[in-house]
């Protein structure tokens, strides 16, 4: 079912003459400039770049008689603000690629994910202790340590792959994307951050039991 159009959007798309269109566009921008600028800022650390991207988003929203906005009007089934933020971010990422090449700021919003750090956190939390640094920095571990690390890593991969998608999302948001419990709750629809922690604890307990049942316990030789 299509969401109702916000009044400033409806007025913009229905505007007939150029004066009405300009006024409606001004009202639209006043209403949404804040989240559009937030969207631009989320793709760069440089304030001036954010302003350039924000301006680019406005240009692109306006081009071809508001073609992108009319697309929402025709089949948007979600809230306009949600759709607008996502569209604006993608425009900013396109802007970034046009200037800097394919590497996107959205290969994460911050630094690239560190699979080693993620695995380390999960290993710590499910109760195993191994010297991750010896592996991560390229030092040659002992054969026993390397075998245990590989065994634990593979067991974790298997355990994770058995989890429902929703639990995998939870773990990745928490340990790869560094999302707060509040953000996870909002994004995934948990009633509160407390429910996020409770589910997280349950999933980690499940992983721990899986590892123990597959013979991966204390890695101390």
């Amino acid at each position, binding site marked *: 079912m299509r969401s109702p159009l916000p009044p400033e959007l409806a007025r913009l798309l229905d505007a007939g003459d150029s004066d009405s269109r*300009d006024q409606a*566009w*001004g009202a639209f*921008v*006043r209403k949404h*400039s*804040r*989240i559009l*600028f*937030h*969207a631009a800022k*989320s793709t760069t650390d440089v*304030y001036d770049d954010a*302003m350039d991207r924000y*301006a680019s988003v*406005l240009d692109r929203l306006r081009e071809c008689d508001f073609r992108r906005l009319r697309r929402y009007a025709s*089949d*948007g*089934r*979600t*809230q306009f*603000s*949600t*759709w607008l*933020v*996502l*569209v604006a*971010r*993608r425009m900013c990422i396109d802007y970034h690629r046009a200037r800097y090449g394919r590497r996107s700021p*959205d*290969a*994460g*919003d911050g*630094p690239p*994910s560190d699979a080693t750090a993620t695995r380390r*956190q999960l290993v710590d939390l499910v109760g195993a202790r191994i010297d991750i*640094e010896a592996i991560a920095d390229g030092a040659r571990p002992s054969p026993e340590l390397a075998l245990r690390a590989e065994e634990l890593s593979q067991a974790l991969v298997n355990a994770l792959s058995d989890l429902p*998608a*929703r639990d*995998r*999302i939870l773990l*990745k*948001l928490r340990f*790869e*994307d*560094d*999302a*707060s*419990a*509040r*953000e996870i709750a*909002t*994004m995934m*629809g948990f*009633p*509160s*951050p*407390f*429910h996020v*922690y409770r589910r997280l604890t349950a999933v980690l307990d499940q992983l721990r039991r899986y590892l123990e049942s597959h013979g991966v316990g204390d890695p101390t030789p």
Partner: protein
Amino acid sequence: MTPDEANEQHLDTEQIAAYLERNMTPDELPRVEAHIAECERCRREALAATRILGMRARRWWLYAGAPLLAAVVASILLVSQRDTETPEQVFGADATVRTSADEGLLQVTIVAPAPGSAVGVGNRTFRWRSLGTDVLYRFTLTNQEGEPIFTGDTSDSALTLPGEVVLEPDARYFWRVDALLPDGRSATTRMLDFQTTR
């Protein structure tokens, strides 16, 4: 893989928006969840949108230089933005930290180390006042660049850094404690700092 093929592998805007609003059919949801679980790009896009939409409740003032705005949009109303704040100004350095009334958060009171204090690299225990029973605390330690060094959960009102966490001498660190109460309310210290001695 061509750009078109890469794009086909990702969720479109409408799918991510529908996921965020939990406005999906029973058939769509498993497919989208399976993708988000495996696709860092789409998951982070959804997370970024969540964060931005969450900012709408806060006061945020936008300021731009007059020439640029004059060239781009003549009808936007301009107000000032704080974009030159130091980390201390943003995060605050009070021991009893202020919590944002706008966010409605309770406060966690720090015991040690005091904000801005100089501590030896061997002082690895952080303490705060307990908020009661069945409270879960999340401790976060970052370096001066804001990069996370250690994150740990505890139900105690103190945490000692594990051995593998190394504090450098003559360095500045930031830390914070977030608390989750049994009734779902949150509390926080905001960011605090300390300096290790030589």
